[in-house]
């Protein structure tokens, strides 16, 4: 039979080990959070620098001829792919984090980067004329089945048309004032909503065929 002192020791030691492991687990979660945020922060900073460098190139060259325009479009498409991948990673990490404070800041940075990309696309089109880059603004809501469905449809559209660039914005993410500006600009209140080529608004789940038809019309 175990002695009374040993019983106390067993209880206290188990409590200590459970506490240490519990907080180590939490600590590991926080370490993982930091790794996630620093990874995304690094990618965002790099992407931001790429866009700034790209804009500076355009300013430096000033006069646009067909060669510089083609180069600009090509670079822009590559930058958008990077931005899109960062967005996907942010979404993947969102549910795994112990705390979302840092992640929300990164989400804001990503939104700013996306809006900045949108305006860059406008600059390219002003300088080079109509590009074959098709921009779709996608207003979605978190944990909304229709938005998720629309996301899958947009993936299909992108796999069919290389020139399509999607700018996805969480319609309810009020921590970034730009979201409210975008909502007002496009008079968008429901999720999912698509703004195709800056002018056509499609509310609710829109099938791939209709999106492609709208893109071709635009």
């Amino acid at each position: 039979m175990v002695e009374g002192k040993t019983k106390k020791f067993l209880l206290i030691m188990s409590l200590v080990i459970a506490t240490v492991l519990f907080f180590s687990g939490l600590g590991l979660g926080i370490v993982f959070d930091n790794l996630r945020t620093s990874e995304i922060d690094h990618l965002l900073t790099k992407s931001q620098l790429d866009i700034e460098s790209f804009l500076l190139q355009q300013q430096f060259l000033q006069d646009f001829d067909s060669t510089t325009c083609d180069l600009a479009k090509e670079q822009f498409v590559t930058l958008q792919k990077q931005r899109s991948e960062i967005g996907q990673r942010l979404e993947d990490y969102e549910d795994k984090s112990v705390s979302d404070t840092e992640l929300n800041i990164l989400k804001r940075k990503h939104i700013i980067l996306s809006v900045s990309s949108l305006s860059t696309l406008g600059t390219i089109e002003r300088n080079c004329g109509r590009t074959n880059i098709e921009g779709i603004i996608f207003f979605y809501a978190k944990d909304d089945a229709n938005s998720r469905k629309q996301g899958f449809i947009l993936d299909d559209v992108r796999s069919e048309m290389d020139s399509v660039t999607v700018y996805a914005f969480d319609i309810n993410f009020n921590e970034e004032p730009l979201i409210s500006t975008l909502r007002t600009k496009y008079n968008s209140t429901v999720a999912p909503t698509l703004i195709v080529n800056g002018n056509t608004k499609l509310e609710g789940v829109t099938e791939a065929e209709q999106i492609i038809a709208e893109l071709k019309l635009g």
Partner: protein
Amino acid sequence: MASDISAILIYAVSFISLFFAFFWILTLLFEEPHLHTRQKKLKRFPKVSIIVPAYNEEDSIASTLQSLLKLDYPKYKLEIIVVANACKDKTAEIVRGFKSVRLIETPIPGKAKAQNLGLKHAKGEIVVIGDADMLVPSDALRKILPYFEDPSVGEVIPAVKVHKPGTLLEKVQRYEYILSSLIRQLMSGIGALFSVPGAFVSFRKATIQKLGGYDERTITEDLEIGTRLLRHNYKVISNFDVHIYVRVPWTLKAFHKQRIRWNRGFFEVFSKHRDIVFNPKYGIFAFLFPLFIAIPIMLTVTFSTAVFEIASAVFTYAPVVSLDDVRLILEAIIPKGPLYINTLVTVPTVIILLTGLYIYNKATKHLKERWTNPSSIFTFIFIYPMLLTLYWVMSFGAHIAKVKREWRGTMRW
């Protein structure tokens, strides 16, 4: 809000599970060198009465009695009593065929009542209560009785194993019984054993009479008497070197009935003896007793959170998401790297799974069992807890709603 609550629940369950896992591991490490103590020699042979309550046990009573008659103990010091309670089959007729076995017939159903009736007629100094479907090794009494030399010992129990498991359900219960036997041995070592089986449990007759016999109002009278003995400062000892084999439910229907009865009985006993909780008078038992109620709560929280998450995802996505999209969702869930892992869930799950496997491995070694049948091991680890959770929830609902209880004695289990 919902996710905040589920995060708090997950934190609480993780912490309590970690505490439990390491409490058993540390206890095992401390007790392991003394788990198989050298068998004490029986100095004197007290008169022993073995009481076997039986309700419609015509299939198994003969083999149980044959194994009892083979016990290595002076026959003139051994009394075997079968209490046939409300039997509608040939149980009594079969028992009459055993000349050295005493038969008491009663039309009143209920195992506790049958046991108390047997106690009333028993002449032994030591009383052993058995199940009508148990198989006992011949040296069982010689290994159990020496413990009664210590006057503070109130009850001695053996390890209970599953006899010839055939169906998957029986095989899974076999693992559960192996694990329970080790946990009981550890609880016995720290003086907190109250959860005792019903097969081949021994008492000093004077002690059980002093405590007023079995409580006929509870449906798990064996659990209740163990708890009552502890609260009266008697030791409840496990000797898991004695292996008793019993039949377990092999159909889901029978298993359902048994678990609802056990769980409701557990709530009843907990409610009856709730004043023990955290009462320093009762030592470590006062702390472990409430933690045992934490097990069903934790199981329920864990699995209901999982079920809630899955159900809300199904309700949200099923109306619009096609089967092809499900594949994409699953692809998104599968981690693409370490940073994609949800540490909040994964870390405690892995630790608890590993500690559980360690304890189980020790249990198989100490009980001379083997790891067999991967499918039943998988079912035991991943599916069986869900089934148990379901029964805990159902039992709690029935307990709260005060649904009429099914008494043992009107059913096999």
